[in-house]
């Protein structure tokens, strides 16, 4: 159990560090679990955690769309009407406005999405989107390092 908490702290700190590097207000993570369900792992703050939980619950949002399409999804304002925004998500996490979701891959296989967000709506510049993709690679490296350890063996 101690090691699981250590893993959680590591992911928490990594999300915070990645958000800082990109200059975003926060970062959050969704991953596919061992039953092939997309799970809300959490975020660098409570807004990020809720952003992911809501998407998991309603089955819609930038992270879900990014995973379905296997490509980046940029949302300048979550409150905008569909297809530009996700008002259903925005209604339940009002502190998040702009979202960038990048798919995470290992060996060409999709494993989840990394999501950056800001409290103010804005356009995502291509350079920032590319940086988000590369930061996604760093997130995958941390996850891969953690995946090779005994406490996660066995079935849920």
């Amino acid at each position, binding site marked *: 159990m101690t*090691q*699981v*908490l*250590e*893993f*959680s*702290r*590591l*992911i*928490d*700190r*990594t999300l915070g*560090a*990645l958000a*800082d*590097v990109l200059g975003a207000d926060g970062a959050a993570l969704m*991953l*596919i*679990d*061992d*039953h*092939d369900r997309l*799970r*809300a*792992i*959490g*975020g*660098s*703050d*409570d807004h*990020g*955690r809720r952003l992911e939980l809501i998407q998991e619950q309603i089955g819609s949002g930038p992270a879900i769309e990014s995973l379905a399409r296997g490509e980046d999804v940029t949302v300048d304002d979550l409150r905008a009407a569909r297809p530009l925004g996700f008002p259903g998500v925005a209604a339940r996490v009002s502190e998040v406005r702009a979202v960038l979701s990048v798919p995470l891959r*290992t*060996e060409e*296989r999709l*494993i*989840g999405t990394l999501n950056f967000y800001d409290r103010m709506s804005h356009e995502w510049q291509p350079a920032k989107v590319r*940086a988000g993709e*590369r*930061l996604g*690679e*760093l997130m995958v*490296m*941390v*996850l*891969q*390092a*953690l*995946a*090779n*350890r005994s*406490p*996660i*063996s*066995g*079935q*849920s």
Partner: protein
Amino acid sequence: MTHIDPEALVASLRKLRTTSPAIGIVHQLERAVDVVNSLFGYSGAGLMFAEEGKDLRYLVATDDPGRSLEGAQLHLGQGPCISAFEENCAVTSSDVRVDPRWPKLADRLHPEVRAVAGVPVRLGSEPVGTLNVYQATVYQWDESDIQALYGYADVIEQLLAAAMAAEEKSALAEQLQYALDYRVVIERAIGYLMGKHDLTATQAFTGLRKQARDSRRRVADLAAELLGEGAGEMR
């Protein structure tokens, strides 16, 4: 308190374990430095690492000038990256070739190494290495550069911490030690080729790497083989 769901994380790591091959920490660090380098848009980047209780040694460099930067500092025992490690803070030089703090460095540097910045990579609060970047032209580093470099060092720290959490400490130390030893063999082979063929360090390394690629071998294996042959010639 974190904002992470431990149960969902463990279930996802379990899935990842079945779909992703185990990758050594040294390879991960090489990839991480490569990502950092591409994001910064500077001329090159590198990572130096210290064995427990020992001096700093270089682990990763993105290119030949970067290798010369790290090699020159290790040879002289001084330079911006070594200072960053020893002082546990960011150290910058707008033009390391004329910087009075390290007057002997210029002679051993690749001509493309001019501006240098290094920040400590820490585990806990203790420095275990440095993340370094360089520019091929004179450059005045500002606070945003340093903050960004610290940000990336923080990500690398999490990667190291993840490897430490996931592996026995001794196994991790063994991997890092092996990689550091690699570098010693390669450095010695470069020195041997420089002396034998009157080459610069860059020419010797480029030739060694090309020969390794052409013969589908690792640079370290070829270097060890060359050193073995060299020892035979001297007998």
